[in-house]
């Protein structure tokens, strides 16, 4: 009994562990090509990611938006709505929160509430727009969300550069003014980069776990992810699930942007979320951990560690920074191989009685 319970708890970890192991193996081959010893490089990497308080806290800071975007992706993907708009949602959240915090009059608490609520609402609405396009025009969610990423990125760039540009400094960056001191999220430990946003992310992990596993809405969306026809039969409105989960996903990813503004840069800086690809790494974490919130927390920290560790080895050895991209790319590859197998298995196993072909074609749509 105890054993089977342990086995069940360990089961979700098996797949990611295998994928990460193979990715490290491929990474090792790449390191050999550069003429270094993979073991020493990996040791340096681990040290650069988790080896000291400074590195550890830097990794956790980096992991914060990844965790949140991972959760955002997980709620949508696990209910069968595979949007990849996390990046745009994060940009909208960050931009709106910075603009509102800078321009709403009144006391600090009022500014904060307006800016956070406004940013989350904007992220949710922005994401719900893709849901609407899917419902009304059968527009592929993957395409609409991906394209919206660019729209969000360049529209905010326009406004940042032409309306809200910070002209006080010398830096030629496309960025807004900085938030006033009293608005900023405090650091958890003085002089280190880690801010209280990380705690918010961990609390969010618990909240999302609760929503997914203990509420009727979570049950509905989970079943929608498993079998849409089953939901229709059982009286679950797929429309409600679609709008609900995509909006929630937008709100969550927007929060990632808000926390970056309040905790890290204290302003909206064009292109930072894109170049760090937080949303994509978050999606990766969600896929690796099979949409399990606790798994997302752990894998996000690991992936953030690979990034910060990669930066460390490029300083310490002749191995270039890109090695961490190789490892990450391989993890993605092995995980998507798993998904492809699962999908193939599902198609093969699906029974096809007469009259069912029509229902087949509609799978995955609203």
């Amino acid at each position, binding site marked *: 009994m105890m054993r089977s319970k342990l086995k*069940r708890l360990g089961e979700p970890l098996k797949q990611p562990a295998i994928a990460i192991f193979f990715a490290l193996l491929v990474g090792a081959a790449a390191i050999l090509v550069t003429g270094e010893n993979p073991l020493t490089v990996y040791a340096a990497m681990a040290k650069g990611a988790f080896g000291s308080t400074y590195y550890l806290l830097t990794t956790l800071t980096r992991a914060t938006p990844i965790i949140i975007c991972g959760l955002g992706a997980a709620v949508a993907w696990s209910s069968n709505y595979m949007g990849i708009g996390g990046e745009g949602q994060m940009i909208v959240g960050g931009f709106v929160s910075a603009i509102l915090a800078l321009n709403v009059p009144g006391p600090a608490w009022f500014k904060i509430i307006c800016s956070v609520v406004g940013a989350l609402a904007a992220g949710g609405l922005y994401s719900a727009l893709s849901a609407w396009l899917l419902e009304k025009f059968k527009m592929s969610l993957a395409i609409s969300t991906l394209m919206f990423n660019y729209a969000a990125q360049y529209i905010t760039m326009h406004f940042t550069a032409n309306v809200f540009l910070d002209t006080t400094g010398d830096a030629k960056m496309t960025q807004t003014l900085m938030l006033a001191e009293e608005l900023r999220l405090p650091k958890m430990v003085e002089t280190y980069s880690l801010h209280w946003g990380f705690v918010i992310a961990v609390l969010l992990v618990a909240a999302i776990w609760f929503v997914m596993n*203990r*509420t*009727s*809405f*979570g*049950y509905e969306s*989970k*079943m929608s992810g*498993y*079998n849409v*026809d*089953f939901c*229709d*039969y*059982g*009286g679950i409105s797929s429309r409600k699930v679609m709008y609900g989960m995509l909006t929630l996903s937008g709100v969550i990813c927007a929060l990632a942007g808000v926390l970056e503004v309040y905790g890290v840069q204290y302003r909206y800086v064009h292109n930072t979320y894109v170049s760090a690809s937080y949303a994509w790494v978050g999606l990766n974490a969600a896929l690796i951990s099979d949409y399990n919130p606790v798994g997302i927390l752990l894998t996000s920290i690991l992936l953030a560690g690979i990034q910060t560790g990669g930066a460390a080895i490029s300083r310490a050895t002749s191995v270039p920074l890109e090695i961490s991209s190789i490892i990450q790319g391989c993890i993605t590859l092995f995980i998507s191989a798993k998904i492809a197998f699962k999908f193939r298995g*599902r198609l093969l*196993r*699906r*029974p096809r*009685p007469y009259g*069912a072909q029509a*229902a087949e074609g509609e799978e995955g749509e609203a």
Partner: protein
Amino acid sequence: MIPEDRYIWGSASQATVTETGIMGHYIQPAFSHRGVLKSKKIQQFAQELIDRFAVKTDGIQAKTGSLSGGNAQKLIAAREIMHKSPLLLACEPTRGVDVGAMEFIHEQLVKKRAAGDGVLLISSELSEVIKLSDRIYVMYRGRVNGEFTRGHVKEEELGLLMARGKA
């Protein structure tokens, strides 16, 4: 309603037995309160389903996909019969299940009728229809074109009505 196909509409193979068993019931006040599910009650309910209908499974946390066809069908029949509805629609309730499970589901349908509820059985299995029904309507091209009552069924006539619409 017992759906025609247990895998397309009746269940989700990746869902646990509990999750499949609670479909349609979870929204009732007994199992959820303001959108929050009552896990304990739900698990008790799932356990009751598999106990009462003798569903062979590794437990309520096993995946529905791991059940045999007959047991999956029993689980679905259990779920639907447990609804306290005055009418049960049963579409092909025993398609592709073994004899034991078939007998069992038949008994449960009759029991539901005996409790004063209506059961509308739709089946391509003639012996099942004749054995269980109080009244049989034969459909041909979307219209009812024949009616029999229990004990007055002539199989040849029924077959002819099915095939070409008139006896």
